[in-house]
């Protein structure tokens, strides 16, 4: 399985890359636009997006919107240090399938992503 992780923070990218490596192939991308390009190819199972991207021109929501517009079929998840039910609601309303407040543990992440995918495919 393939995971696309769009995140501007090096440490976070490193952690996900390394910790998820045992479950799937992880592509970690720093830039939002580049991330959209990558996502368009549509061969990812899961796309994880950090909301707080460094790029002033686009944030996590913008990336999601673009990807959705492209008709990307992957399970989308917001991964963010913005914690709280408000944020959860915001993300789900914006079209994210899942919401993970940081810090997120790899195992939990993998389980939930698959549960969702299975439920959706069923």
């Amino acid at each position, binding site marked *: 399985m393939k995971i696309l992780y769009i995140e501007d*923070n090096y*440490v*976070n990218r*490193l*952690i*996900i890359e*390394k*910790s998820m490596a045992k479950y799937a192939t992880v592509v970690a991308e720093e830039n939002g636009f580049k991330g959209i390009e990558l996502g368009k190819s549509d061969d990812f199972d899961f796309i994880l997006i950090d909301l*707080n991207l460094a790029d002033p021109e686009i944030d996590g929501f913008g990336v999601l919107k673009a990807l959705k517009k492209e008709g990307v079929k992957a399970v989308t998840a917001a991964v*963010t*240090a*913005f*914690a*709280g*039910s*408000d944020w959860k609601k915001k993300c789900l309303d914006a079209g994210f399938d899942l919401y993970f*407040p*940081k*810090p*997120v*543990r*790899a195992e939990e992440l993998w389980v939930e992503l698959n549960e969702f995918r299975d439920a959706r495919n069923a």
Partner: protein
Amino acid sequence: MYSLENKGQVLLENCEDEPIHLLGKLQSHGLLFGFNHHLKLTHFSANAKHLLGDVSSFEAPVELSSILGTSAEESAREFLKSAQPSFLRYDHMYTILAEPYRIAWSLNDDQVLLAELERVDPSENSASNSSIAELQGFIQNLRSYHNEEDIAVQVVAYFRKLTGFDRVMYYKFDHNGDGEVLAEDKKVGLESFLGLRYPATDIPAQARKLYERNTVRSICNIKDEGVPIYGIKSTAPIDLSLSVYRSVSPIHVEYLNNMGVRATHANSILHLDKLWGMIICHNYDEALHVNFEQRQLTALCADFVNSWLVNSELIRTAKRKTLEAEWLAGFSSGSSELSVFDELKNSFPLLKTLLGISGFSVLQGGETHHHGMHPHGKSVLDYLITNMQTGKVGEFVYTDHHFGKAEATEDTDIGGVALINAGLAEDTFIFFYRPEKKEVYNWAGKPTMTYEKSGRHNLNPRKSFELWQETVKGKSIPWSPDDVKFLSDLTDAIEVKEALVVREAQEKKGYSEVFRSFQRKNEIKKLKSDLEKMQREFTKTEQVIDEAKRVNELKEIVMSNMNHEMRTPLNGIIGLSDLIEGDPEASEDMKTYAGLIRDSSLRMLYTFTRLMKLDLTEIKADKTSAGKVVITNFLDNLLNPVKAKLRLENKTLEWAIHNSKDTLISNPIIKEQIIINLVNNAAQYGGDSVHIQVSAKYLSLSGKRVLHISVEDDGPGIPEDEQNMIFEPFYMGKKVTDRLDEGSGLGLYIVKSYVKYLRGTIELQSQPNKGTKFTVSIPIETRDEDTLH
């Protein structure tokens, strides 16, 4: 040179219009010169021509001094400086053309200076000393007499002695102008005229006016034709009003002739410059010349009578005014409770004296009240009102005889009546009645027949002076000007009093009105100020709310930032630690260390998260959340996973809802937190195989609905000395726990904060080894929680 003799025939229709002052003639015993203000001759009488000397033509103006001498001229100048209207100045003797003359100066209305001369008879001088002594005696006696009649008697006696006239009369005029002979001194054998009345028409109006201006009138001889007066340049008649020797009007001559009088002398008695009476001397058979000095003495005597009159009138008026003032003061200060009628009744004796009334009536508001003499029929009063009313309130009418013409059929002794209307709010008619005064008038000749018709188409003055007696009935003493004035004052007093009473009542009402409106104004003011205060407070509150909102916003920003900034590095620490721990190439020590790093960080995260949970924005969301849960479902959903987890630890959890199982629970998240924290606490401190029981029930305490939630365990209990501390933040108990991944000491602090937020209470029951029971009481706000049943 023109003769100014008025030769026009006077027709008696207009005898009042007869220009008696412009007759242009002089009695023969006097001489007259007229000068202009430059003292140039303008007029002279025919008999003075000889004093002009050689003057035959009058081209050149003739000086006064050339006729009368320089000292006379000086006198004339002096006189002119001080000349006043109606002022006649008697001067001393001058010798003109070797003869002694007395001069009398006057300045007439046309500004002609008149110099009237009379030749002095030397023999007359001796009479003067005794006459003056007699006058002195008369004046001294004046002091002892207090009424006019007594004085009149003295006056006529003096006059007769002085002048020697056959008859001297003191003549007094009444308000109509009719004259009555008050006193008389006459020659023995003559018929007495004492008490006789002469009609007013005997002295026509212009004659009266002259008597008022020129107070001494001597007619020496009615048979004297008189001498004409010449005007040098002017044809205009010369005004002889102030002349001493003015000739007699033909009508007057005829009148005197009809009376048989040959010579007459009259002095005017004046009061306040009006003719009050006269002292009249008559001589029947012979002419009688009253010389200069005698004339002066008569004038002096008359002046003294005038003074006495002034004095006596002043005293009389003052006495009257005092009485009037007494009455007015009494009336004004009397109680306002009494009616007008009662007030008048109370003061009737005084009113009687003042007004000469014998009774009065008051007609007010359809009611009539009488006091004293009064007419017996109401129709009379109505008649009077209709006939006498002027229609204006405050005005009034009065009569001394009208009453006789009223429709009264009763005998009344009322002669005169005065009617006033003294009401403000309504008509208040007050009738004052004067008793009839029967008078017998002895007219000297029928008063209506003062002039007789003759074939000459003019009226001649009456010939008949035969006694004609008239009995006057139905008349009262006429109302004098003083009476009229007092009636006016009385009307005013009544009206003022009424106005004051009304005003008092109005003022009282007005005061209470004013007071009430003042109160109202005050109340309004107070309300306004209260309102302003409230508005200020409201504004303050708004400001506070705004402030709070801003602070809240700020807090939220800070919170979310903090959240983010905490989580991000924590994520890094935890994640990397995990990586190290999971790296097969790491040594056991490094794995252990990494594990410890991760656990420490997790604990930090946990604490941080618990702290964040106190943020009420979460709670707000809780309150507005649409989905309300039934309590049974709520507890099941909440506690089932916990029960499963605790079973792994060999701990049991049970729960029950004792009543109102269908109640929808409000603030589920907060209640969730409360229960979870209490349960976790029990699990953490309860020791191994602890049993935890949660129960919920609804109660009504003092009329308020309350939800009781209790969490009970059979653990070791909490020592009493720690029971207060456990609610403090970060307090972990004295017993050290080695469980690092749980417990922050915040649990009970959170529970306490949430319970406080819900306005509830929390209670602890615990004894060592007897277990622990926490009971939370939360009041139910009925709008938040409703029951399904």
